[in-house]
């Protein structure tokens, strides 16, 4: 049985979404209302376990009376609001934001983004062949993770997961400013010299594959990574008595990575180094 945590009761407010009246708990994200109304609002930096940073600006919607567009992931529902999710103005901003992102980073391993690029008619190539982009070799400095800055969209999810929202390790933060801003440990050192405890919770929340398991990275490089051939089995971690759920991703009878279900009330997708990476003994067949 999954226990769903109940928050403090909130009154329902009524507002209109694309002209249709809807009801939602006061202050709940507009994005939730959009999704329950069956509207496909794209979002990258929003996740189901973290407070959204509203940095990607793909989920913007138009709220009557607001000077600018507002991020649906962070803006709370208010009584009498009039929200439009699919106006020309909204579609324009989403298209440009997708173009800006796709022209500056590699979105090839970002789920769903190819569909949005097509849907919004984004043409990332039109900024020219010399458009500045994040061009960096992946950083492979330990046996567990790979940091591929080429794919990082600076959504801040890994920072929040490592910091006060989940792990409380504070090993990573955003350094620098503007286009040169990047996720980094102190002094941009190798991960092995940092406060990182290798819980892998940052990989769990990364929406683009900028953070990945070394196993996945190596298999992709070798051309053997095949998600369609993988099975996912959720089980209970055997290391200690907390009872965290593990989802084992298995390809060709080998565990290739471990995730954790986000709706688990104990862990919300978080694991420790043992649960996340300590699976080699399972497949030690000597």
């Amino acid at each position: 049985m999954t226990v769903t945590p109940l928050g403090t009761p909130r009154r329902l407010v009524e507002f209109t979404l694309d002209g249709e009246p809807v009801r939602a708990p006061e202050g709940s994200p507009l994005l939730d209302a959009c999704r329950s109304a069956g509207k496909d609002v794209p979002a990258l930096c929003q996740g189901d376990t973290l407070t959204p940073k509203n940095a990607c600006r793909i989920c913007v919607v138009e709220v009557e009376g607001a000077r600018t567009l507002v991020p649906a992931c962070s803006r709370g529902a208010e009584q009498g609001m009039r929200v439009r999710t699919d106006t020309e103005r909204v579609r324009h901003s989403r298209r440009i934001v997708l173009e800006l992102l796709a022209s500056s980073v590699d979105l090839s391993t970002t789920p769903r983004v190819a569909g949005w690029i097509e849907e919004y008619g984004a043409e990332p190539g039109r900024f020219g062949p010399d458009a500045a982009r994040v061009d960096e070799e992946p950083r492979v400095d330990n046996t567990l993770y790979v940091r591929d800055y080429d794919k990082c969209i600076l959504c801040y999810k890994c920072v929040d997961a490592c910091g006060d929202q989940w792990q409380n390790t504070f090993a990573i933060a955003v350094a620098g400013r503007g286009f040169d801003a990047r996720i980094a440990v102190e002094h941009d050192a190798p991960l092995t010299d940092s406060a990182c405890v290798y819980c892998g919770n940052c990989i769990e929340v990364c929406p683009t594959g900028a953070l990945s398991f070394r196993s996945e990275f190596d298999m992709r490089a070798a051309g053997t990574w095949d998600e369609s051939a993988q099975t996912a089995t959720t089980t209970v971690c055997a290391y200690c008595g907390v009872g965290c759920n593990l989802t084992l991703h298995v390809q060709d009878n080998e565990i290739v990575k471990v995730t954790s279900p986000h709706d688990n009330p104990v862990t919300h997708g978080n694991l420790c180094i043992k649960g996340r990476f300590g699976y080699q003994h399972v497949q030690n067949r000597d």
Partner: protein
Amino acid sequence: MDLHFGDSKPSDEERAAVDALLGPPESSWEGADRSDADLRWARGGREARARRDLLLPGLHAVNDRVGWISEGALAYLCRRLTVPPAEAYGVATFYAMFSVKPRPATVLHVCTDLACLAAGAPELCEGVESRLGPGSGVSVQRGPCLGLCERAPAALAIRAGDPVRTAVAAPATVERAVLAASAPGSAAGEPPAERALPQAGDPSLILLRRVGVVDPADLDDYRAHGGYTALRRAFALGPAGVVREVTESGLVGRGGAAFPTGRKWQATASRPETPHYLVCNADESEPGTFKDRVLMEGDPYALVEAMTVAGYATGAHQGYLYLRGEYPRALRRMEHAIGRARARGLLGDDVLGQGYAFDIEIRRGAGAYVCGEETALFNSIEGHRGEPRTKPPFPVEKGLFGRPTAENNVETLVNVLPVLTMGAEAYAAIGTAGSTGPKLYCVSGSVERPGVWELPFGATLRELLERAGVREGLRAVLLGGAAGGFVRPDELDVPLTFEGTREAGTTLGSGVVMAFDDTVPLPRLLLRIAAFFRDESCGQCVPCRVGTVRQEEALHRIAERTGAAAAHDVALLREVGRAMRDASICGLGQTAWNAVESAIDRLGVYA
């Protein structure tokens, strides 16, 4: 929190710089040698973490003493304040005035922004760089506006040490800039603040009337010229009475957003959560703006008094003055004024014997335009990266340290003094119905008498430019700074009011009036504006982080091209600009396209 501080140790000098700010460490948990007691007691944590807001002063302390921030210094500072080193590194690398790589003790900041660009900054830079070669022990940094536009071109030398020394060269020649950098302690002093006022001595002045008349160091002189009558009136009216008076005066914020000051104060005062805070935004970084500097340098007690009035009205007992890092003289004068006011019972536990406690703390910025955005400024004071927060919630509900906060800029606060001394009705009679009171303008560029001008709202741009002595061959006027817009020479009859400029499709912004004659190539100005926004974007949201880069690239591609050859890139600029305006988190990204757009549409720069 189980923090990892690494093995690097601070040098004696770095340790001394931090200890001078925070006091000596009390246990090995915060960086002292280990004692027997430390083996049995764990300390630090919550108590130290509550001092996170000392991170920025701590970084300044090290940077001022040594010139840059080493791994060991950062680790020691983090240990003292229980701040994760990764976060502190993120903060240190956010600000332009800090370096986390070794560099010479002396840094010469040479302004390459609009007014200085028009006054020959590129030649100055080349001259200075060729004189101060690699072995000179001076690092030359080309950078954004230093707020010395009336004396363009400008340079600021900062030499690390104990004490840190600064020298300003403006107007700068190669010789003067080199002298400032090589001997900042003995370089020629700056001209007095009133030299920036072409109207100095004019009896009709209201906001500027004391600048040049009083001795900025002398509290008695300030009082002899009407100082502290506004605060006495405030105490007589009571907090609600002050808010009513300010509301009825029609005073609106002078920072660019033009929000009614009385409403902001009312909203802050009425919040049940405590404590309330008052923040004075003195992070004047809009290229072309220097009025707040002149006010602070020429009449510092006026700001102290105005902040006290504002604190009283909003129910705050602590005020923060967030002062631009590039304003050394304003910093010295404000420090002195606050110290004197405190010693004389005009700040502290019992202001003027009225039983009201209020004090002011100065926080120095470190070179980040975005920190002028109010929520970014809160983050900066709190010891986080100066990234803007999402609104709502608004600062009057959750501002500094998550508490109700009223934030006003220097000019807005100084306006409160005449509101109280002359009364709301008389104040509201100045200017127009929609824009009341006097207004300061920072006039620079192709004019004979650049400086801070004070005129009642409603004067036209033509009147202002004529008084400032605009030169022949005017090509364009930049109104409102880099975030504002250009107007044509045939549009000079636009009335300088909030409603008048809005009707004319432009903005007053922060009061910048920068005149450019036809010797200044416009595409070069636009490139500088684009480079400014690209440099100053905090990087948090995609439209601004990438959009400002794409804007600059397109302008580089267009360069001097016009017509059909530029059409594709102009169209691209429009599309990106529209998304930046609509979808960016804060005002920086939302306005980054204003000036370029106005140059295309109103000046026809690439037509």
